[in-house]
């Protein structure tokens, strides 16, 4: 069950750049060539924002982008951050030249599909994070992909050109109706699923708030489509040591068991998760 990939490394990464997107969101670029070279779409890193005991623990972040130099060699990763607590505030305010301990890449990545299957990515808020690398990977395989992207308001729909440049079709929603369709992102997803011929394959990928993941997985299953969902849990270590990040997942015996989202996930089959 456990995905085996390159061994994670722990590096002191320089803060290469910090792009402020809004009063809550930023993109932090961390110089970590070893991690950039090994990371697969959907994998994450554990970041220690400060150096002392407070805040104490690392926090998990999806790898948002893999940055390369002119020769094409991976040099850095970026993370998409939303300021909600002490660690995310340190990451929001991080300055060029600071260093952070970054452990990764960790976890089981998305499994990309191949044509003629289409990839439908469903992102809510900061759940956009794993889809930039997935979209690039799918594009390289010639897979046609669509991003269903929902946010609270139009100003919080970020990096749209990044996805347009990757030839990703965009379906946008906002909760206040200030951009795209008014409402939740699952509504247009469901309409498209209903309209798609049964013999035209599609894989649904999702990352975002738990309620959105549950709704997306349920809608996909109802329309007979597989889904891969990237779950978010409070995580202590990222390596399987602490057992804090568990998700109830249906096992071979038909019963639900707690699996560690850091090892078995964070990407899990949507139809096998019990959403409490």
């Amino acid at each position, binding site marked *: 069950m456990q995905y085996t990939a390159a061994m994670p490394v722990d590096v002191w990464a320089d803060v290469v750049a910090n792009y402020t997107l809004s009063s809550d969101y930023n993109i932090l670029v961390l110089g970590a060539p070893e991690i950039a070279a090994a990371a697969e779409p959907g994998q994450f890193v554990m970041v220690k924002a400060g150096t002392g*005991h407070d805040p104490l623990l690392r926090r998990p972040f999806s790898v948002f982008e893999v940055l390369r130099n002119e020769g094409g060699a991976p040099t850095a990763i970026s993370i998409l951050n939303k300021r909600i607590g002490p660690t995310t505030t340190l990451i929001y305010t991080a300055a060029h030249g600071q260093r952070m301990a970054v*452990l990764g890449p960790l976890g089981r990545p998305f499994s990309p599909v191949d044509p003629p299957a289409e990839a439908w990515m469903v992102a809510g808020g900061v759940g956009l994070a794993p889809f930039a690398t997935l979209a690039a990977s799918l594009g390289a395989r010639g897979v046609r992909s669509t991003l269903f992207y929902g946010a609270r308001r139009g100003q919080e729909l970020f990096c749209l050109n990044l996805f347009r440049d990757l030839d990703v079709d965009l379906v946008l929603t906002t909760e206040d109706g200030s951009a795209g369709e008014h409402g939740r992102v699952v509504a247009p997803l469901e309409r498209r699923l209903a309209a798609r011929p049964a013999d035209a394959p599609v894989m649904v990928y999702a990352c975002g708030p738990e309620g959105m993941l549950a709704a997306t997985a349920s809608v996909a299953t109802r329309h007979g489509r597989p889904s891969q969902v990237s779950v978010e849990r409070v995580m202590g270590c990222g390596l399987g040591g602490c057992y804090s990040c568990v998700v109830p997942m249906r096992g071979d015996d038909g019963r639900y068991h707690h699996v560690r989202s850091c090892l078995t996930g964070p990407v899990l089959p949507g139809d096998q998760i019990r959403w409490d």
Partner: protein
Amino acid sequence: MDLSVQIGSLTLKNPLIAASGCFGYGVEYADMVDLASLGGVAVKGLFLNEREGHPAPRIVETPAGMLNAIGLQGIGVRRFIDEKLPELRARQATVIVNICGTTLDEYVEVARILSDAEGIAALELNISCPNIKEGGIQFGCSLTGTFDVVSAVRRVTKLPIIPKLTPNVTDVASFARASEDAGADAVSLVNTFLAMVIDIESRRPRISNVVGGLSGPAIRPIAVRMVYECRQTVKIPIVGMGGIADARDALEFMIAGATAVQVGTANFVDPLIWPKLLDGMRQYLERHQIARLADLVGTVDTTARDKEWISS
């Protein structure tokens, strides 16, 4: 320079043990950490059967610490022997198995099964998990309960047994003595401090079990004090733990009276902490010209403080 320490009949190559509940079954770390370089690996607590544990959220960060209520999720003793022990042996880890029970008979049964397995160095008796009602805490909070469970396990195993004590009692040293009287080879302390964190916006507890165990640097001075008190009370070795985050912290526990130490929460923050801890201890010994680390144990000098106190 000799870093080895002695826990009953067991010699550890150095005093550093990965703390139970903080290092999975050890195999999770085998590719990143040379398990053979550790004094010991205390694996996650095992009951006779599998357990699912509590729902998430199971942890929340606190000032210089964390609160957890995992609920002793585990694969059960037989699956551990079949699925995890072979790799731990292949990696030449010194395996300390943390055992749990809802009844005295279950402790005995788990201990008996592990005693028949090859490649286990010691048993740590978990009589102190604060997070489940039947996780041994009913033994660990009663002196007769502690005596009874240690005695019962003593009768069925020749392996060194190390009861892990809870700090959630008035006088932890009396529990160390009850363990010693019952035939324990050592005691380990402290398990976590029962604690609570509330989200004031939702007015809900931050973890699903409502309350949980506090660990990390925040608890270290209390744990050091408890190790010191136990050192005054019992002759058996003490395995000290509680918030160790660097070599200085580990040395502090040893000076207070711990023969070996366990590191838990800090391993979450830095999974590559082990060689750093060993380097720091070696540097200290060099600086103080101490040839054997074991000679440091319990050497805290309280006399000067007493004199100052009297003369002031």
